[in-house]
């Protein structure tokens, strides 16, 4: 067993991190704090998950979200996708292992991975709508969000969802930044009955995962491993997978996620080349006017026109 996080002190405590701990802020430049906080991580051990959805319920409850009553389409997945109100979702896959011919029921808790290199933040045009704290948490700041959906294009995991109401905003898992700020773990972790979800420092979580992976390997899952994809410089939500060599079988978990090169181009080169080209065009006009001067109609031109019109 992982030693459970202690119950909270009921006395109000000042938040452990805030504005001063931002290492990235969308559409802004920030001076990173001199000292980085200890990186935190949530570890989701897929092999221990029983699919009870307590985490989903806890997420709705803590964040005061209300999901519509949906319909059954023959899957345990409910709702059928992440929504502006469902920030975490159990995804169920029935997979036949080609080596053993066994049916394996793969259940993965989907949600924001809190990338070390967040694509959503890179794509966001609104200053301060997406922030990253030095402990690794990537958070959406609703007041600054303009609902444009650029974060969806930036995200390699297809996580953010825009609300469909008169005030469209983007929503996703906050890693319960409000709870973490006062020394608690995220609500999903608190609710998990099997400790499939554990929370702590990133180093501790990696170490804990090592023990789990050794255990799984000793039970015949020789491809068991940790999912902490290097393409986004690692994540602050990690998975222990029994088949870490094929993450795609877990409801399409990308094998090698990275910020799309299209997004890199759009938010990198084009941003500067575009403004540069516009400025150059304007400058060319200015220089031309200074050098060549205006192109004026001469007295002769008017006379010629009069002569021509006279012949009408």
């Amino acid at each position, binding site marked *: 067993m992982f030693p459970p996080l202690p119950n909270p002190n009921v006395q109000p405590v000042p938040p452990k991190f805030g504005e001063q701990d931002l290492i990235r802020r969308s*559409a802004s430049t920030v001076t990173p704090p001199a000292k980085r906080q200890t990186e935190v991580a949530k570890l989701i051990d897929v092999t221990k998950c029983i699919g009870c959805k307590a985490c989903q319920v806890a997420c709705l409850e803590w964040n005061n979200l209300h999901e519509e009553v949906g319909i059954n389409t023959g899957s345990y997945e409910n709702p059928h996708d992440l929504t502006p109100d469902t920030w975490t979702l159990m995804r169920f896959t029935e997979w036949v292992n080609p080596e053993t011919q066994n049916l394996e029921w793969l259940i993965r808790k989907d949600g924001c991975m809190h990338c070390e290199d967040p694509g959503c933040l890179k794509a966001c045009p609104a200053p301060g709508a997406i922030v990253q704290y030095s402990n690794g948490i990537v958070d959406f700041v609703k007041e600054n969000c303009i609902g444009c959906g650029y974060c*969806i294009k930036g995200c390699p995991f297809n996580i953010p969802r825009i609300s469909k109401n008169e005030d469209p905003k983007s929503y996703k898992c906050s890693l319960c930044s409000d709870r973490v700020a006062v020394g608690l773990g995220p609500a999903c972790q608190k609710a998990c009955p099997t400790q499939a979800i554990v929370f702590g420092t990133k180093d501790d979580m990696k170490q804990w995962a090592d023990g789990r992976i050794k255990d799984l390997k000793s039970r015949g899952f020789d491809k068991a491993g940790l999912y902490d994809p290097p393409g986004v410089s690692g994540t602050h939500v990690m998975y222990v997978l029994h088949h870490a060599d094929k993450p795609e079988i877990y409801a399409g978990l990308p094998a090698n996620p990275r910020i799309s090169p299209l997004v890199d181009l759009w938010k990198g080169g084009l*941003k500067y080349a575009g403004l540069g080209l516009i400025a150059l065009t304007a400058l060319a006009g200015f220089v031309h006017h200074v050098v060549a001067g205006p192109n004026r109609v001469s007295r002769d031109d008017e006379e010629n026109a009069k002569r021509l019109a006279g012949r009408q």
Partner: protein
Amino acid sequence: MSTDVERGDQIHPGDPVLVDRYTTGARINHWITAASLVLLALSGLALFHPSLYFLTALFGGGETTRAIHPWIGVVLFFSFAGLFIRFFKANLWVRTDTVWLAHGRDVITSHEEKLPEVGKYNAGQKLVFWSMSLLIIVLITSGLVIWDQYFGPYFTVEQKRIAVLVHATMAVVAICVWIVHVYAAIWVRGTISAMTRGQVTGGWAWRHHRKWLKELVTGSPKK
């Protein structure tokens, strides 16, 4: 031989000679397009580069900028479609346009006398016309793909990534074409009155669009 004379083009002898170049309808159509294009450029640039985000204040903040930009795009699309229908015939490419273009150096150094006589539009104007037509088609198409509020569910994330890159790139090109268009109108003195009052002087038409002027005099101006 086709004529470049458009509906409403007419010559008024006098001192100076005045020539009707654009009807009231064409001018209103043009200025609606112009206003939409400027508003689109401002609101689009605001979301394109963080250093220009302050421009969202012109539209009442980031959210309203995001909400209003696509609607202005719809206005521009239909408004430009009107201009296209009015002007496309006189903008069809003819052989002298290629000759005119080959004399690019004489164009920018104002050596009009070395250029072939041109009709209602010269090759430069035609290039502006056709490039804007193409750009606007690409911009409205890619714009619909990234209009998340209404079309979000119909496209994949990868399609949206392509669309947003195409949209931004083509918008930059469109702004550059617009700068060329505006600059040319300022540089060639006597041009702007064509779009404000609808008239140019005979001298202006003689200097820059002599074939068109001759057609107006000798040909069969459409009354």
